[in-house]
């Protein structure tokens, strides 16, 4: 949590990159992380694969299927993260669906997160109400930030509630759809939505995700938010090129700097 808070205080135009643990290979997690850090990602979101996602597009879904086939699980992931704890400096977030966490045991899960140095969690299908009633104390006591998602459909009063309960950033879903890279610039509807959220002057910074695939997208949304999250576009890159270090570094540099 603190690591993320410091990052958001010190830097603007953040670039966060999502990748699925155990993809393309079971032991890709460390090489991918190191390459992302070297390429200039400000923080990373590590996807915990699940076979029944309700908000993932085909690219991320496919990477999850492969990762599960490779034998990825929370247990394996935590073992990997324990080993690389010292070699990765940028903040790490875990993202995934609730049932595997529930099965692992939420308390045990949070303890493991703390132990391996995870800063925050994105669990899209953990409702705000359930989080507040059952888990808020557990998360904050262990220094784990819970990151909420908002969409163009989220009403203002809901956003205010989420803002209040947030401890690092809010994940602003760019459009009401599943994840996936899109071409072309922002639509007027998206701009309206970003401006609506900005006009609320939230205490919590926002990151824009869903549909960011290139440098131009990234720069464009940075005009309206604290930074951008790239997911499907990077997974697609992994799909085509594999987890080659230099290729990943090059991909991230190009994303961030445009060259």
């Amino acid at each position, binding site marked *: 949590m603190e690591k993320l808070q410091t990052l958001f205080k010190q830097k603007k135009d953040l670039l966060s990159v999502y990748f699925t643990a155990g993809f393309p290979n079971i032991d890709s997690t460390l090489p991918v992380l190191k390459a992302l850090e070297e390429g200039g990602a400000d923080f990373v979101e590590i996807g915990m694969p*699940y*076979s*029944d*996602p*309700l*908000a993932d597009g085909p690219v991320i879904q496919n990477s999850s299927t492969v990762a*599960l086939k490779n034998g990825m*699980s*929370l*247990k394996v992931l935590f073992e990997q993260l324990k080993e690389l704890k010292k070699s990765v400096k940028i903040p790490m977030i875990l993202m995934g*669906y*609730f*049932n*595997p*966490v*529930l*099965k*692992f045991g939420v308390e045990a899960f949070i303890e493991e997160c703390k132990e391996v140095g995870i800063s925050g969690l994105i669990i*899209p*299908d*953990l*409702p705000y*109400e*359930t989080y507040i009633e059952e888990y808020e104390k557990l998360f904050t006591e262990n220094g784990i930030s819970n990151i*909420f*998602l*908002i*969409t163009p*459909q*989220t*009403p203002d009063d809901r956003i205010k509630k989420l803002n209040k309960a947030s401890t690092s950033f809010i994940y602003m*879903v760019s459009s*009401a*759809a*599943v994840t996936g890279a899109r071409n072309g610039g922002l639509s007027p509807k998206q701009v309206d939505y970003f401006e609506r959220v900005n006009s609320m002057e939230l205490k919590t910074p926002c990151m824009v995700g869903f549909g960011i695939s290139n440098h131009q997208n990234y720069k464009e949304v940075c005009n309206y938010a604290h930074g951008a999250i790239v997911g499907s576009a990077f997974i697609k890159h992994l799909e085509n090129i594999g987890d080659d270090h230099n290729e990943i570094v090059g991909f991230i540099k190009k994303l961030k700097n445009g060259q």
Partner: protein
Amino acid sequence: MAQSYFKQYPSKDGFYKEYGGAFLPPVIEEEMKKITEAYYAISKSHNFISELRSIRKHYQGRPTPVYYCNRLSDKYGGRIYLKREDLNHSGAHKLNHCMGEALLAKYMGKKKLIAETGAGQHGVALATAAAYFGLECEIHMGEVDIAKEHPNVVRMDILGAKVVPVSKGLKTLKEAVDSAFEAYVKDPENSIYCIGSVVGPHPFPMMVRDFQKVVGVESKEQFYEMTGEMPDSVVACVGGGSNAMGIFGGFIENESIDLYGVEPGGLSMKTGDHAATMMQGKPGTIHGFKCYLLQDENGEPSPVYSVASGLDYPGVGPEHSMLKDMGRVNYDMVTDKETIDAFFELSRLEGIIPALESSHAVAYALKLAKKNPQTSILVNLSGRGDKDIDFVVEKYGKDYGIG
């Protein structure tokens, strides 16, 4: 149990004790809230209720009869009665909630109905409702089920629905739900997800239960009229559990009536050989709600199987999950073999070909009857078996003197 059962459950957030709720990504969460609000506002209105009543009577042919199985009872003992949902228009109880959901969609100004289907019964019912109301209809169905339930696929085609084949995973009901959700999320403003059972996020388990309750209300009255008493037991099959919740609804507040939910025991108790969620599952979340769930040690839903495509689902309705914990409903199972036996027994002793799903309930009723010849049993015969005949004859015909 207090008379206020239906007011008590679910809670305002859609919980049945610890089960149910809406474990959803925000993209779907807001849409579900809109449907919940619309449901509360519209479904209690005079216009909605009278339109639905008229549809039930003149279009669906309700009330469906309760029938006393003379020859079956003679052979097995007990007094076995069937609630004939197989005579409901389109051949199963599913149309009860489909007409309700489609009517709600019409009131909400939606253009398109999206759903998954297992055996195809829900798909056919929804396609029927869509035709009635002049709405578009898109049904997601696993490729395995498409091959097995060919007649229902043809019916959906004829009714003008678009059948989307699902080729992921085991290509059955769970994957069909994933695929339908995905399609729905792409255009939630113009379309509405019409889930096929008392599963999914709030408000679906409540909505489907409320629309199905007509089965229980009718049969309670009919049974009393026929016999002057209440049945000792009420039996229904449980996949997601819509037909069971429907018929149980008429009897749940009367504690002296035993309720039985029958799950598919399949081939064996090995993982992947059955879909006996209540027998072997542990609480978990799937498709946006909490329930008993067949899952592995990592929380991944387990592969499931049943001879009845409409029952092979790794989860189960949240209300059923609560009723199991409360001990109000007894959940048990029958095997594929017992199911097929019952399928032929009912066909040959009473001239009624039951759906394989409903055959599970019949099989269990036969067991109860054998155990206690004095007892009266009301079975929800939730659907007719036309859709299953090719599959049954091909796979089991020889054992029963066919071919």
